[in-house]
């Protein structure tokens, strides 16, 4: 290495050092910037000042550190000193490296050679001094402080945006310029305490507020008025309380949507304001879900019998309480017993807040569940609504402890007809076929094996679609078609003669099926009353109106059927993937579930069994019909059309529009007023849709519409009134024809033709 190379190496060191120091100083300056900004946010609000202050402090720190490290006076001697201090092997002689050869003595030259060798060795390992780690630590610390303090910063919105003024004028709708008007109307709304919402002043006269809010109207009139009142939804009226000569006020707790209008009198003339809507935001029911369990869980005796229930609970204004209601069902048949328990969540113990994740461990053994028993439970939550809290519950979840010792297959006498099992035999057929396929796997070609597996997958799909129907699932295109296809396939099914054909086009058994039946298979023993067999699907229908069906047990059947359908999907999947051995366990699961569903039906039958009144033995079999008489019943249905005035006005509006009239005739005013009365009922329920119409109708009725706005107003009113007319189902209508001599001749000829 010659002198040039040494200088070059030292120059490189200089730049490295400079970079490190600059990075370190920059971190410190940035940290200072953030810290100053965060601290300034607490007291200073304008962001420009805050920014300038932060920049300034950052620059000061940068400059101080820059001067402190003397980076502006950095030269080679600094590195010589550093090398001499740091690296002892250079023997305090590094300065020789930069000195000219000619200036050196022989000894110095010898020393220089030695030092040069040493320098070459240590050069790659030279570590320059810096405090980057410390600076980075300070930067991170300041960043944390910055984000933490930002939360308490003075809100810029509050500082810069002027509060919206709600003090607006309200002129009477009759546009009487001489009449006193409301110079300003201020509406302050205080939501109920439990909502924890702050009081606020409404920005518009149309109010949107939480249910149960207290609303205060403060109206300042431009002149003396008498009898000032607020009309609510066209029904109730409340007098405004006179605070002083011109200011009136009224406070009211609003619990339902509707609209209001302010009325005042002046010199015996009544003035009315426009309509303004009141829209109530209802307190929502608590939302509850159970996150970690499916609706139906089946456990074996060897499974872990402690079930963790994790539930997510939320409410718009906050929850007050939640718990689990569990019912243990023990025994079977007539000996079935129920025990209900209320279980509290353990994590957290108290359910409070807007959003809570709660959990509890259910120890089935402690709850007293034995094999064959079932646990039904649901989570119920209450919110903080006052005075009556809203409450909501989840669907019922089921945990069944399997009893492997018995399998009930007998039909119950009370049922009369064993409907259920017949529907669930096809699954067994698929299992038999799958097992057969697996046995014959070695004998079959791969192609044939795959094709048979796929066909079985198809059968599984058809079966799933059938059960899907019971669940009210609309099958993919044409379940009917597929059902027919399946029927065709079954004709070649060797197991058919041993089975019992159902879900066919003749499931209602209106046609004698004797020809199709296998010998020795007697339907009469199974079905003595065809009416009872007509619609087994009824058992699975979700009929909200029928209280008898909205029971525990039907839900359990539905849940099981749902679970069975899900399992059938898996069974089909593996059959379609040509892995019938993987599909078999799912098929067995599905079959087991279907069997259980059939057993469940017994409980339902017992519960709804008909208990006839006792017979009077003395009257029995006497054939006395004296008390049985002909009976006449006469009644009239109310067939009046809904909203007759609105319907009448629609016709009138159509006529006015066709005539391009810009004035409303006096004869129509009464009709408009009546239509307004009908529309006001709707406006209370849906002010957002109908309130405008009501206002426009009133303007039309009072002939207060500007001629230039007439057409637009008529179109708007017409549109709103059309929406008010309900859609009803069609009814047959009598046609009218004109029959002349030619028609008679035609009919005669037709009759002759028919009898030829």
């Amino acid at each position, binding site marked *: 290495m010659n002198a040039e190379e040494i200088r070059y190496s030292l120059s490189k060191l200089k730049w490295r050092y400079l970079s490190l120091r600059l990075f370190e100083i920059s971190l410190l300056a940035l940290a200072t910037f953030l810290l100053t900004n965060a601290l300034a946010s607490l007291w200073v609000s304008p962001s420009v000042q805050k920014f300038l202050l932060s920049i300034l402090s950052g620059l000061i720190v940068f400059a101080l550190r820059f001067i402190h490290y003397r980076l502006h006076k950095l030269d080679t001697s600094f590195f010589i000193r550093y090398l001499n201090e740091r690296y002892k092997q250079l023997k305090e002689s590094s300065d020789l490296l930069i000195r000219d050869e000619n200036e050196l003595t022989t000894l110095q030259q010898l020393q220089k050679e030695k030092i040069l060798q040493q320098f070459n060795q240590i050069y790659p390992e030279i570590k320059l001094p810096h405090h980057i780690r410390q600076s980075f630590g300070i930067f991170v610390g300041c960043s944390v402080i910055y984000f933490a303090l930002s939360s308490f910063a003075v809100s810029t919105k509050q500082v810069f945006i002027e509060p919206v003024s709600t003090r607006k004028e309200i002129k009477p709708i009759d546009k009487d310029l001489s009449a006193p008007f409301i110079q300003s109307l201020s509406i302050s709304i205080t939501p109920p305490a439990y909502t924890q919402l702050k009081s606020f002043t409404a920005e518009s006269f149309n109010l949107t507020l939480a249910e149960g809010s207290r609303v205060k109207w403060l109206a300042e009139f431009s002149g003396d008025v008498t009898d000032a009142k607020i009309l609510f939804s066209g029904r109730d009226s409340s007098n405004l309380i006179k605070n002083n000569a011109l200011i009136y006020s009224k406070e009211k707790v609003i619990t339902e949507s509707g609209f209001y209008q302010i009325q005042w009198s002046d010199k015996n003339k009544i003035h009315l304001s426009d309509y303004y809507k009141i829209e109530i935001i209802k307190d929502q029911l608590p939302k509850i879900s159970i996150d970690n369990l499916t609706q139906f869980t089946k456990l074996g005796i060897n499974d872990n019998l402690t079930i963790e229930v994790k539930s997510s609970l939320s409410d718009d204004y906050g929850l007050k309480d939640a718990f689990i209601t569990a019912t243990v069902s023990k025994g079977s048949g007539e000996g079935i017993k129920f025990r209900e328990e209320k279980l509290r969540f353990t994590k957290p113990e108290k359910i409070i807040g807007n959003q809570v994740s709660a959990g509890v461990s259910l120890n089935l053994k402690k709850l007293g569940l034995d094999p064959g028993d079932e646990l039904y439970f649901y989570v119920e939550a209450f919110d903080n609504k006052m005075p009556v809290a809203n409450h909501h519950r989840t669907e019922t979840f089921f945990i069944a402890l399997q009893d492997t010792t018995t399998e009930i297959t007998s039909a119950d006498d009370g049922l009369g007809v064993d409907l259920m099992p017949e529907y669930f035999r096809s699954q067994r057929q698929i299992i038999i076929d799958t097992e057969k396929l697996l046995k014959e796997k070695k004998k079959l070609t791969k192609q044939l094996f795959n094709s048979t597996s796929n066909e079985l997958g198809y059968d599984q799909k058809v079966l799933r679609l059938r059960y899907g*129907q019971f669940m009210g699932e*609309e*099958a993919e295109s044409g*379940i*009917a078609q597929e*059902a027919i296809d399946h029927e065709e396939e079954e004709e070649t099914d060797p197991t058919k003669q041993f089975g019992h054909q159902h879900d*066919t*086009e*003749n*499931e*209602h*058994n*209106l*046609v004698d*099926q004797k020809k199709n039946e296998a010998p020795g298979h007697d339907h009469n023993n199974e079905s003595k009353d065809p009416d009872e067999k*007509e*619609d087994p*699907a009824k058992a699975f229908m979700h009929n909200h109106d029928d209280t008898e069906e909205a029971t525990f047990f039907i839900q359990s059947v539905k849940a099981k059927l749902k679970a069975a359908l899900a399992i059938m999907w898996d069974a089909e999947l593996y059959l379609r993937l040509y892995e019938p051995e993987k599909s078999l366990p799912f098929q067995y699961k599905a079959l087991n579930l279907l069997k259980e569903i059939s057993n469940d039906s017994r409980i339902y039958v017992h519960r709804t069994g008909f208990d006839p009144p006792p017979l009077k033995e003395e009257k029995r079999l006497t054939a006395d*019909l004296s008390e*049985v008489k*002909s*009976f*006449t*019943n*006469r*009644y*009239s*249905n109310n*067939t009046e059309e809904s909203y007759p005035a609105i*319907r009448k006005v*629609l*016709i009138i509006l*159509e006529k006015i*529009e*066709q*005539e391009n009239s810009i004035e409303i005739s006096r004869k129509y005013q009464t009709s408009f007023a009546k239509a307004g009365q009908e529309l006001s009922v709707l406006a209370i329920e849906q002010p957002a849709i109908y309130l405008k119409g009501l206002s426009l109708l009133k303007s039309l009725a009072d002939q207060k519409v500007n001629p230039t706005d007439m057409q637009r107003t008529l179109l708007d009113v017409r*549109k709103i009134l*059309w*929406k008010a*007319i*309900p*859609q*009803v*189902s*069609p*009814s*047959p*209508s*009598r*046609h*009218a*024809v*004109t*029959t*002349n*001599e*030619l028609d008679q001749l035609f*009919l005669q000829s*037709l009759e002759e033709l*028919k009898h030829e």
Partner: protein
Amino acid sequence: MNNSWLTFDPAFPVWVIVLITLPVFIFFIGKEVQRTQKFLILRIVAQVFIFFSIIGLSLRLSCLEQKVTSKIILLTPGYDNLKVDSVVKKNPSYKMIHTREANPYLNSEPLISYHNLAESGDIKIIMGEGLPGFALEMIKKKNFEFIPGNLPIGTIRISIPQPIVVNKKNLIQGVFNSKGKTTLRLISPAGVEDSVDIHGTGQTPFVFSFKPRQPGLFVYTLSSQYSSSNILAEKLPLEILAEQKLKILILQKSPSAEVRYLKNYLAEKGHSLALCYQTSKNNFKYEYANLNSIRVDRITTELTKAFDLLFLDNTVLEELSNSEKSVLENSIHSGLGAIILFDDFPEKGKTINQLLPLKTKRLTVDTVHIRFPESKLYTLPVLPIEIIPNAFIQSITLHKGRLLSGYVYSGAGKIGFQLLKETYRISLEGNADDYAFIWSDLIERTARAKNKMFKVKLDKSLPYYPDEPLSIEVISSGPQPSLYSNKILIPLAEDVVIDDYWHGKSWADKAGWDQFFIQQDSTELNYFVSNKGEWESLRIAHQMKENELAQSPEAGSNSSVQFIRKPIQPLIFFLIFLFASAFLWLAPKI
């Protein structure tokens, strides 16, 4: 009157003229002979002149005149220049004229008025959008060929269902000629009812469905949006009729859920109902909904006249006495509707087979998986028979080609059948529209129709414009109709060939709803007159169709010789009469 050179058009019957003038002539000749004056020959000649002049005046003589006319090409708006070039090249001697609305073509002359068509010559070719109907009537010989121009962009065909009844689903069908992606919207007074997106160019059929909620005369809008700014809105007039209530009698052997729900449905809709079923051997239950009590235990002519529709099950039908069966048959022949409810399809030889002569085939299926328009899939029991269709059976519900409900004509009445069973399940599921779909059509089409004395209709469909003639057709059940429009009696002429078929013509004076009214039974026909310029594409398409139908091209030379009848001026005869009479007056004095 004849094809000879000299023809006449007598003011009175010829025999009257001859009977009067000939004796008078002979009498006056005799008188002249008897007069002892000079110029006997000249006087007789003058008498002859007088006689012939009177004959000439009363017979209104005319003579045939030969006229050579050139053939004409008439250009109307929308003609294709290239086609005209070709036509002119082929027929260079043809004269060219163009209507006022059409662009002139080289040497074409303008047609000042459609009235000039009568005298303008022999129109051989009409090109473009053609002539309006009333102008076509001006052309005496319609031996022209019509060469249409391009169809206009817009709605070129529209079919509005008749009648439109409130609460029922109605379909408006049409064809739209588009030049690119267009969105069509049917807008009711309540807002958009239905919309169709048309992709591509050319003629595309479209269908809108809508359910009107209110009866009356309303103007919907058919808007077509070609681009964001290019929106054309046309007024679509719809007359929505209110539901007309029916009187229905239901006779059942024993009560059933099916009939109970059907009865409830009809009663809720305001129809008048009487229901009778047997509760025990001698006891019956009678129900009357929206109807005063009436004896329904025996079928009589009075009873059947009081109802429009009769539901009866086949057991009741079989148990009717012979006289009741006869009354029933006659009533149906006179217009009564009957719907038979089957429990099972009866064997041969039963009354039902006489009333409802259907050829059937037994089936092994008793279930049908059916989907009604916009409904879910229903699984319903059905009578396991297949009705073999024939020309006399009118189908109402068809499923995969299988007839599930329908009716047959029996005289003026109809007999309906419903093979679907347990339809009340649909009602129980809350699907009122689907339940109504199954029954309302069958009931409506089977029930006795209200008899009207007159039926008024317009010869052409929408659009109608002010100051354009409207051809009206009236079908009468016998009496001569007195048709009024705005309290003005419209003269009607009975068809020469068809009895009770009347024609008339009227003119609407302003745009908007208008009405024709028949005084005798208050029959009305409401129609909507569009403003000029509205429905332009539809008007042009109709006009082109009309011209196409009116054309009857014939081959011929470039010029044709026409013989026209030119009446001899009556002044000539009058002057002859005057001079002859003057001579007779002067002769004694000379």
